[in-house]
């Protein structure tokens, strides 16, 4: 059975400028031990989708649909039950470890929180667990580092600490939101290696949110491409790079430096004022008349390779 299944998930914010449709009828699933990469440009709703799973969005948000975690719909749970899910069942690795760590608390204190909250450890024993955890993420001299404050660590060490915090309770599912953002390329490689190793060892599933295709290629089994709140393509990682189906994905791949650095035309649309038919229509090099007013459905163009485009209908 899949560990996480999103069914017709819609996330909307009501703002004074209008309704922001950050996620529109998203259907996704992540199996056991699977790493699903969610890629897309800045502002396409990736992070919001991740936060909506943990129900961490602000109060002006409406979330519709179903978020089935091991068969339980998270949207029906109470706040207390939800708190038991967060950190214990589904953990998060945030994108910016400097701002996502509390500057006034030592990293030991922060990493020990899940042990104290979810596994009932006493503070002292929890520290012991933290040191073990830091050893696992290969933090240098872990027993001294637990007493350090976040600003005393280098970027790579901070991200290691973040990963330790996320993996503390060996959660079945991790949502990693751009875990390599803002790190040097060499450190990025180390962090990617580390994540790969730890998730494989503990059999953790992961939703990896990123716009770095290199990181995605390294870590993911399957890829979902998000554009303006919609999933426009879903494929196995090999199929994805070999045979990209959606014009957006093709453009996305062509914009990579290794493939000629060809920028895509236009900007992604505002999530308040979305085009009527296909949301990629205004920028699409192979747009047709039908795209203007009709919303394409997902079409299976190969085995487990789905594309939301009229080119394949």
């Amino acid at each position, binding site marked *: 059975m899949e560990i996480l299944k999103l069914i017709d998930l819609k996330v909307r914010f009501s703002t004074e400028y209008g309704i922001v449709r950050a996620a529109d009828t998203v259907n996704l699933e992540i199996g056991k031990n699977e790493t699903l990469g969610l890629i897309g440009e800045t502002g396409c709703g990736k992070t919001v989708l991740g936060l909506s799973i*943990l129900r*961490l969005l602000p109060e002006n948000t409406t979330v519709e649909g179903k978020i089935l975690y091991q068969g339980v719909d998270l949207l029906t749970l109470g706040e207390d039950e939800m*708190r*038991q*899910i*967060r*950190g*214990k069942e589904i*953990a*998060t690795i*945030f994108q*910016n470890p400097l*701002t*996502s*760590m*509390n*500057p*006034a*608390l030592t990293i030991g204190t922060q990493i020990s*929180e*899940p042990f104290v*909250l*979810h596994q009932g450890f006493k503070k002292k024993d929890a520290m012991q667990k933290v040191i073990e955890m830091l050893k696992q993420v290969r933090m240098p001299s872990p027993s*001294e580092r637990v007493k*350090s*404050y976040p*600003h*005393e660590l280098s970027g790579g060490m901070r991200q290691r600490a973040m990963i330790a*915090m996320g993996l503390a309770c060996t959660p079945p599912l991790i949502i990693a939101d751009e875990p390599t953002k803002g790190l040097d390329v060499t450190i990025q490689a180390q962090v990617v290696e580390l994540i790969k190793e730890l998730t494989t060892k503990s059999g953790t599933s992961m939703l990896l949110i990123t716009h770095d295709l290199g990181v995605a290629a390294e870590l993911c089994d399957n890829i979902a491409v998000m554009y303006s709140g919609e999933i426009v393509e879903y494929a196995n990682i090999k199929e994805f790079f070999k045979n990209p189906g959606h014009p957006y994905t093709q453009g996305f791949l062509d914009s990579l430096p290794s493939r000629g650095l060809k920028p895509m035309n236009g900007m992604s649309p505002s999530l308040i004022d979305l085009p009527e038919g296909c949301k990629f229509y205004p920028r699409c090099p192979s747009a047709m008349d039908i795209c203007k007013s009709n919303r394409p459905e997902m079409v299976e163009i190969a085995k487990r390779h789905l594309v939301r485009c009229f080119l394949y209908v």
Partner: protein
Amino acid sequence: MHDIVIKIIESRRPSLEVLKRLKKHRLAMIGAAIILALVFSAVLAPFIAPNDPIEQNLPYRLLTPNTEYPLGTDNLGRCVLSRLIHGASVSLQIGIMVVGITAIIGVSLGLIAGYQGGLIDEMIMRSVDILLAFPGIILALVIAGILGPSLYNVMLALAVVGWTSYARVVRGSVLSVKEKEFVEGARALGVSDLRIMFRHVLPNVMAPVIVMATLGMAHVILAAAALSFLGLGAQPPAPEWGSMLNAGRAFMRTAPHLTVFPGLAIMVTVLAFNFLGDGLRDALDPRLREKVLER
């Protein structure tokens, strides 16, 4: 090499850095020294006071300073120095109690108001506004007057008036801290709101509170002395600086030492706390200056 790195890192520790900057602040160190001496004499009052502070010795009334009574005697023949030393413990106790209570109440309410927002915030902050609409010392005077003269009622009155400024400053800081990513991070770990407030947000808003509490000590000691001077605080024969001033008032011309020394004691104590508070403020964060002054 490793040791050097560790040392460099440790020297960047915020608490140590504050201490280092505080040590360079000369006035703050003078203040701290005076406060230390005060605390010392307050704790050891029964042993270092040359005479009994309460025992009357009528044949020796209104003596000027001499070897047996270093600061002279009052109109009932009691040793002024001994009374001042014992009075230090009274004043410090009032200061610590009132500042402690007001800081705890004010910080908690400010945290709740800032973090929860909405109706709770409105209710707490409007009561702060109402209390701040009265001149503090007059409100304390009324409360102490209604409750009747005693040291405890003075503390109560000062506590009722005093918590508001803590609540205001803390709420303001909480409003900005709660938008930080690490609060969301804590929520993503499954930390409850109450725990986030007191464990994750509170340490980030403590800097101005520490400064306010130190400056608050000076304010409270002065206010308590004022209320005692007006007869609402410590009752005779208890040695209290404010009431000593009041008692000495009638003999200002014939025996000025009865008013000069308690007055000096109050002044020096208040100054010491103000010096330390100023130094702490500069050491903790130079930008705090505006924040604390705004209250």
